[in-house]
């Protein structure tokens, strides 16, 4: 468990640096974080393809659900950089420990739902985390001003580098803490809950998440953009044509 949490902390720190310090290489996108977490936390061949497909599913859903076309500066309600890592880690963690106990046949759908919900909760709860980093930054400003006024370039640089390190440490601590808390919650809640829940309910939650994902993506890519509806319609036609073409070729 410790080694798993260390991997999660490492990824969480890197992703926070990418998202909050201005690096902006898109490492902090939920799909990227979930896939990296899946690759690094792979529980081994005993889990066959599930070990990688579940992080892929969690990452793809979270990517659509948390795609916000608003500017980062005006976002106050959530922080999505560690959502993919936390979601994939919780899903794999819960799968390894609960799969033998639960008898609902959902072909991995349950763990995708669990991971996605965990990622959403992590993104929602991480909003104050970003505010906390900005509070720290604000409290550093007078010291940086003093260093600049005194011509102490070394102290100025040291304070700035510490700001970057602080983002890294906050991201690491948050990702590990959120994974531990949500994994614990899953271990606590799922066994009794699954006595009352059928595969159909899990499929219902999955369908609801898919519907919400398509809506969030529509808000990000189509709504409020002039002259793009016909391009969306073209995309629909292309997908339908491709499906029939592939089915025809298969016969």
């Amino acid at each position: 468990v410790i080694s798993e949490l260390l991997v999660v902390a490492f990824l969480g720190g890197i992703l926070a640096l990418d998202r909050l310090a201005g690096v902006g290489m898109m490492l902090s996108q939920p799909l990227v974080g979930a896939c990296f977490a899946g690759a690094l936390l792979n529980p081994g061949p005993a889990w066959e393809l599930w070990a990688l497909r579940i992080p892929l599913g969690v990452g793809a859903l979270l990517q659509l659900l948390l795609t916000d076309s608003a500017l980062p500066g005006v976002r106050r309600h959530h922080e999505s950089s560690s959502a993919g890592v936390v979601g994939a880690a919780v899903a794999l963690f819960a799968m390894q420990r609960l799969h033998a106990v639960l008898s609902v046949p959902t072909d991995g759908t349950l763990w995708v739902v669990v991971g996605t919900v965990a990622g959403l909760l992590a993104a929602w709860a991480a909003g104050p985390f970003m505010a906390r980093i900005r509070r720290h930054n604000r409290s550093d400003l007078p010291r940086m001003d003093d260093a600049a006024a005194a011509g102490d370039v070394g102290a100025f640089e040291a304070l700035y580098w510490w700001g970057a390190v602080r983002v890294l440490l906050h991201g690491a601590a948050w990702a590990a803490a959120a994974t531990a808390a949500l994994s614990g919650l899953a271990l606590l809640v799922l066994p009794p809950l699954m006595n009352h829940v059928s595969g159909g309910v899990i499929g219902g939650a999955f369908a609801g998440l898919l519907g919400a994902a398509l809506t969030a993506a529509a808000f990000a890519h189509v709504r409020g953009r002039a002259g793009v509806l016909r391009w969306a319609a073209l995309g629909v036609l292309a997908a339908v044509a491709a499906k029939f073409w592939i089915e025809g070729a298969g016969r």
Partner: protein
Amino acid sequence: MIGPETGSGPPVGDPGVPGPAAPPPPRLRSVDLARISTRAVYIQALFTSERMQGPGFAFAILPAIRRLFGPGKRTSALKRHMGYFNTHPVLAGIVLGAVARLEERRARGEDVSEERIDAAKRALASPLAALGDSLFWVTLRPLSGLLGVLSVGLIPAPDSLGPDWRVLLCPLVVLLTYNALALPLRVWGVGRGHARAGQPSELLRGLHLLEWRMALERVGAFAYGALAASVLLLVWESIGRVVGGGAGHLLLLVAGAVVSAAVLSRRPGRLPEAALLAAGLTALLALLL
């Protein structure tokens, strides 16, 4: 110009009397611009709502200040750049390069006032922020994620036991899509800004940011249409096959979409809450039905 110091400064003292060699006029080298580029990567590490990227700008331009000014003048140069500054982080290098050029001219004794440097900084930062935000944050970032999700379906899954390479290829699609446009601007931005500091309007026009945005918006809409249709076609088969009742789950998907749209229309940005509410309600509906 970027290059090694040439030592072609004006002579000092009586031209007839050989004296100590005059210090060469300060000049930025390629390595200084490269240092500014690498520091600009962390331009938001001390982001605050009061000064935005101001401290990051001062931190990034320090290699130029060190090269151009002696210890006595560094203080005022550093303080000059500690104030409010905000632009898109990918394009910040262009402003840094242009300001570094003006500081270089000032250090060489040309008539470049502090006010002129400040005005040039603002004149470049504001349009680059507007164009960069709408291109990178609003259009390219969502598009790169969407293409990554599409690639989950398009890249074939392995038939037999073995590594599912999609777990590496799909993130790669996200990273390549975004960074194919962003990385060159980050790498060459400082040099470009430094070389064309005197022609800000040409500098802005030459980036073609508006054209990129319009083209990428269309690609995003097309990809969204393809994804939505593929999901709706697949959900009938996959959800139905896995847990039974494909038609019912298609209805639940629509219910989730409607709930989420209602939340997001009233409270934009509340994405996790909308998704959690949609999942909870559809699970409850499935339980009841």
